[in-house]
């Protein structure tokens, strides 16, 4: 595989994201922790969303990734809490487990050509199954209340892979994770597998007739995608120091993943990241706006808590109807048309 060509714009972009915490320190020294937390959330979810989009872009709309993040997070924490196994080993085990589950469910699906609605609803059942198992094993997992990884010492430990109190450190860990996700995306984008999967998503029979092993290609991308999501889930657990069946597993999370990626743009490198920025900023922005304004607060009362979700749902409907390519996809289309300075011929 040829080395990726690094463009100057990409270098500038990476440096800019790397310098964000310093900017935060300069501009908001008082509430540094809060803004860093926001940035960490964005990058962490961007990584998980990127993992999902690996599959989603090839028409494999999975509602099962809430199961994979859940498996990654719970395996890591359970091994740490009850077996004392360091997350350095626990995370790879969680990732492997998620990949195995992904392949186990994926293999019959792809062999039997379960696609579209059926694939979405079947993976939804997987999500529900994993969530029910987590709740059912309540003696270990804390049931629907969730659980916490045991803290080691003051909360910063290399062995226990705990870094939450140091937000700067957390930011750079998550930043590295995000870059890793983008790198994987690019590798897939420039591989032969991508063309095979593109062909398979257009017409499976035609793809198979030119010698593409469709099932094998789909299994490869499923294993990779579920591994990334499990990794993201495990790091989420290490950063939040809390996991609950509804925060890191479950149907709500699966839907959130799908929708954030659609909002950002499924077919571009930074689409999932834009989706993460969009959803996090929307939720936080509305929260701050409502908290800050007395009239809004009086008008909405406690119902303000759900306002962001309502706007989110409405926007999603509008996005899918009017902008199915997402923010970034549509934006880059406009940009291209502007540059061509001609009437668009789509």
């Amino acid at each position, binding site marked *: 595989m040829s080395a990726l060509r690094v463009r100057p714009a990409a270098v500038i972009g990476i440096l800019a994201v790397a310098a964000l915490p310093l900017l935060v320190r300069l501009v908001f020294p008082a509430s540094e922790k809060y803004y860093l937390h926001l940035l960490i959330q964005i990058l962490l979810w961007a990584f998980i969303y990127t993992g999902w989009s690996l599959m989603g872009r090839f*028409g494999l709309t999975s509602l099962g990734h809430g199961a994979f993040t859940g498996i990654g997070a719970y395996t890591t924490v359970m091994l740490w809490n009850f077996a004392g196994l360091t997350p350095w080993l626990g995370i790879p085990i969680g990732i492997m487990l998620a990949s195995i589950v992904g392949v186990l*469910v994926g293999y019959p*699906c792809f062999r039997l050509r*379960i696609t579209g609605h059926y694939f979405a*609803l079947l993976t939804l059942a997987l999500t529900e199954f994993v969530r029910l198992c987590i*709740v059912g094993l309540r003696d270990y997992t804390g049931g629907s209340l969730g659980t916490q990884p045991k803290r080691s010492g003051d909360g910063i430990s290399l062995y226990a892979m705990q870094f939450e109190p140091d937000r700067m450190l957390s930011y750079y860990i998550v930043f590295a994770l995000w870059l890793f996700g983008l790198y994987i995306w690019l590798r897939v984008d420039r591989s032969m597998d991508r063309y095979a999967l593109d062909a398979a998503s257009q017409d499976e029979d035609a793809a198979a007739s030119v010698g593409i092993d469709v099932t094998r290609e789909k299994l490869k991308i499923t294993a990779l995608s579920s591994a990334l999501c499990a990794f993201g889930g495990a790091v989420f657990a290490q950063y939040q120091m809390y996991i609950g069946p509804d925060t890191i597993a479950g149907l709500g999370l699966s839907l959130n993943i799908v929708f954030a990626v659609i909002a950002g743009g499924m077919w571009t490198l930074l689409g999932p990241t834009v989706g993460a920025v969009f959803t996090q900023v929307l939720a936080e922005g509305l929260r701050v706006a409502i908290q800050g304004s007395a009239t809004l607060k009086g008008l909405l009362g406690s119902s303000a808590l759900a306002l962001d979700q309502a706007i989110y749902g409405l926007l999603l409907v509008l996005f899918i109807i009017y902008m199915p390519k997402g923010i970034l996809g549509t934006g880059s289309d406009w940009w291209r048309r502007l540059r061509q300075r001609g009437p668009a011929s789509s």
Partner: protein
Amino acid sequence: MDCQLDVFFLEAIINGLLLAGLLALLALGLNLIFGVIDVVWICYVELVMVGMYGINYAYKGGAPFLLAAVFGILITALAGVLLHFLVIRPVLETPPINQLLVTGGVLFLLQALATMAFGIEFRNVGIRLGSMNVADMSFSWSRILAFLVALGGMLALWQFLKRTYLGTAIRAIAQDRQIMPLMGVDSRRLYLVTSAIGGGLAGLAATLMVLQYDIYPQIGLQFGPLIFMICVLGGLGNMIGGFIAAFIISQFIAVGSSCFHTEWGYAVAFLFFMVAIFIRPQGLFGGKT
């Protein structure tokens, strides 16, 4: 926790049967929509929730229960029409997965609006129907009523589809949606009628559910996955298959819950579902596609 073939076990099985009626009714509406319009309303149980709140308010506002139920059914029928007109119609020609996802956006919207309007607390209409006791077993009347009404609703829909002109047209368009417009059938109007019926069935289910369950904004997450599973297991769009699948799944839940914890009953049902789909991907009762 232990599983014995005693009277409680029998009670669990019969309660499972009674639950199946309600689940079959819920699956019926979804199957009708899918069979005719080829769209999965992933927000279907949220429509039921809208109906439940409607009934709750009408009843608390002083209306007799039957009138409140009619009101609830009208609301959900209207919601079904609006959903089709505003949300489904613009994406009808795009890839099918878009239609599923767009109704997912509606799911978030309805859930959030319900939270904003009614708060997150559990509500109850406060009607107690009591229960029937037979040989140490007790069955609540609300469940028995739900079972009977669900059965009646299904028979009524069956007759409607079989005997009326409109019903015949709906069955015809479910068979071939390309040819029917050429035969001079206004498919847009038929889709709206079907959406209204599908929504109305959600309202009927809501009427039965307010008697048994508390109302809260997240109720869709409790029932939704179960209903989709039943529909897929029976073969999406296959109404009779969905009916039988509801009985299979509810037995898993009822027996599993009586032997183990409730979640394990559900978990086993989901596991069974996945395995069943791998053996028969078109659903247990779906034809070859």
